């Protein structure tokens, strides 16, 4: 729709709708002002109106316009923006119904930490970090860590199920951007910030970094794949068995 990226998230239509409302409001105001402006310039140029009028306009139409703008802003704020934030950004689906994933950003890659079939993330420790074999410092002595696996720049999710992504960073600020999911969230070192959404379309798209994070910022790109539930289960099984056998990822090698 009018140049926006495709929408593949359950909450996306609402954002796009408000975006549309805003641009209609802007267009109406701009055209209204523009017509007034051009009429005034033509009608009151020196040659057609040699003597200026000290008092000028005496209607209160403009105050009415100002009040109307204020009311529309209040409506957009109170009816759309605040409720949206409350239900989509501030409130989260029940963790039992949702899929949970951690995304750990670093210059210039996305480490994606899946908890594996047990659904519990294994412990991590920065002292265990090894750029080659253990980019997140997962503590293999933790029983929950056994089935965990890490992909790099590859985020796979099933369609139709809420996913909660916990965002954190190893080094500097990044910004997790999924244009087609209408998701964008700054990643602040020292914090873990969750976002959630429900994918509604199968297919491939990209993860972008939207916060300047250094010289490789422009190529800090990841891939997002939305599967059907069966495909996803298959992919999950493959990944967890691989991780138990090797514990390594081929990306860095």
């Amino acid at each position, binding site marked *: 729709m*009018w*140049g*926006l*990226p495709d929408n593949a998230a359950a909450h996306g239509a*609402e*954002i796009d709708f*408000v975006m549309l409302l*805003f641009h209609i*409001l802007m267009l109406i105001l*701009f055209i209204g*002002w523009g017509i007034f402006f051009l009429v*005034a*310039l033509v009608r*009151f140029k020196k040659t057609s*109106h040699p003597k*200026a*009028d*000290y008092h*000028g*306009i005496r209607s209160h139409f*403009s105050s009415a*316009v*100002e009040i109307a*703008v*204020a009311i529309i*802003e*209040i409506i957009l*704020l109170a009816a759309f*923006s605040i409720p949206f*934030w*409350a239900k989509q950004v*501030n409130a989260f689906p029940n963790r039992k119904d949702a899929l949970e994933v951690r995304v750990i950003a*670093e210059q210039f890659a996305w480490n994606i930490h899946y908890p594996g079939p047990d659904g519990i993330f294994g412990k991590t420790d920065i*002292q265990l*970090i090894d*750029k080659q074999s253990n980019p997140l410092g997962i503590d293999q002595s933790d029983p929950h860590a056994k089935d965990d696996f890490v992909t790099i720049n590859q985020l796979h999710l099933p369609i139709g199920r809420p996913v909660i992504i916990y965002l954190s960073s*190893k*080094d*500097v*600020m990044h*910004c997790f*951007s999924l*244009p*087609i999911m*209408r*998701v*964008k969230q*700054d990643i602040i*070192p*020292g914090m873990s910030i969750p976002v959630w959404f429900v994918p509604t379309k199968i297919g491939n*798209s*990209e993860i*972008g970094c*939207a916060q*300047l994070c250094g*010289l490789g*910022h*422009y*190529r800090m*790109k990841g891939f997002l794949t939305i599967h059907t539930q069966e495909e996803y289960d298959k992919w999950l099984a493959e990944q967890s068995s691989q991780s138990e056998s090797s514990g390594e990822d081929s990306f860095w090698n």
Partner: protein
Amino acid sequence: MSSEHSQGHDEHHQLSWWRTYVFATDHKMIGLQYGITALFFLLFGFCLMMLMRWQLAYPGQPLPVIGKWLGSANMPDGVMLPEFYNQLGAMHGTIMVFMGIVPLAVGAFGNYIVPLQIGAADMAFPRINMVSYWAFFVGGVVMLTSFFIPGGAASSGWTSYTPLADIATTGQTFWIIGMVCLITSSLLGAVNFITTIIQLRTKGMTFMRLPFFVWAQFVTAFLLLLAFPPLEAAAILQLMDRIAHTSFFLPSGLVVSGQPLEISGGGSVLLWQHLFWFLAHPEVYVLILPAMGVIAEILANNTRRPLSGYKSLVYSVLFIGFMSFIVWAHHMYLTGMGTTISAFFQATTMIISIPSVIILTVFFLSLWGGSIRFTIPMLFALAFLPMFGIGGLTGLPLGLNITDIPLHDTYYVIAHFHYIVAPGTIFALFAGIYFWFPKITGRRMNDVLGHIHFWPSLICMNLIFMPMFIQGLAGVSRRLYDGGAEYAHAQGTLHLNVLISWSAWILAIFQLPFIFNLIWSLFKGPKSNDNPWESTTLEWATPTPPPHGNFVKIPEVFRGPYEYSLPGAKTDFAPQCQQIVT
């Protein structure tokens, strides 16, 4: 005072060349120093951006001729490195904001015009004024020098977000030191403006008779005075993080390229953002209010009628001044903010948009019933209105967090604020230069060259920034070295980069008539009388150019600033200092 300064001097009291032109204390000379330096920096910042535009239009292709001059550390074989692109971006922003627009709008126009418009002989503290200019100059030199040190200039954006800025190359240290100088300069200037406007208004110049330009400068000075200290403090803290290994902005547990950082940790990344935006939001009003002041003067003068709502303007600008201190976190919606806090900042942001709408409405309404003269200053002032309108309107979807999610950090933001500062503020400042040039130099600028400057600039500005809205809606991020070529969702709008870049370069070409006009008119322009635009405010009641001490006789003020076309008067303007209207 005029007897003390301008008459009956023997040779010994003549100010030396150094005191007149270099370490000057006269507000007009300082204003000119500011103006020339700032115009130079604006041009320089523009050149940085033109280089970036090459890389955005033709990513990875060697830049002919110029590319080689810029050195193999920046552009090996003429191909720009990402490091260099990031330096250009950060320095373009910093230079344009802190070394171009603010010094031109406040340092130059404020210094030159405010004392004249309030009927004062000089600023309240002439020596502080001098120090303020030289602090700015030193800050500028530090910033420029940073391009030549190993690792180059600052490259973490004009926002210098930590931790990136904390671990960046030495250029960032130069940026901080430069900023401390620039901030000091602005603080000294702000104190001076506030004192001058409160204390040195001439007899009869009540607050409600101040030209709107003076009001705008007054509020601007308060913004600078109150908003800059937090950033100055923050800059010093960042300096400490960088050189003394403190951790004000560094949390524990950072691992950079696989190596844990040797820091104590425990700091807060968001603290920097709060301190930065606590300055930087008021700062955007610092960039726009003086421009609105210039526009008000020129509109009243060229419509030959009073502004439709002087009081609304004054109350709006005061209200903006207060509100601008409680909207800063609208730049931080996506940092993980809860509903309550973000509701607060959205509400304040929507509230602050109302006085801006009122100001714009007053300007539009003032045209109605006028007898409009399309002089060159007026053309720029008229163009300001719809351009500022676009910039202001597109701020609304950025101000509500629901629509900020897709738009944040995209080219939509770039387009939004450039509509405000480029065809907005810069056009207002051009208008001001064309308007006050005859008073400053005693000569008039050429109209034909003015038209050749104005029309292509207006077209190019729109060809540059309008397509950026489209790119932004398509989700293309800003600050990308390849303009988004890496991303699939950007592909549909990449071709616009070529149009944008060519428009930017053509825009540069059409600044040449302006530069030529400035220099040529200075020497060869037709002589102007004291009040060529038949204006009402006090600066036009001085000799031309105004001498040291400004007024031959200190004027007294009898009426408001914009008494044009008073019913019953013979001429269509009633100067503020003229007791009886003839």
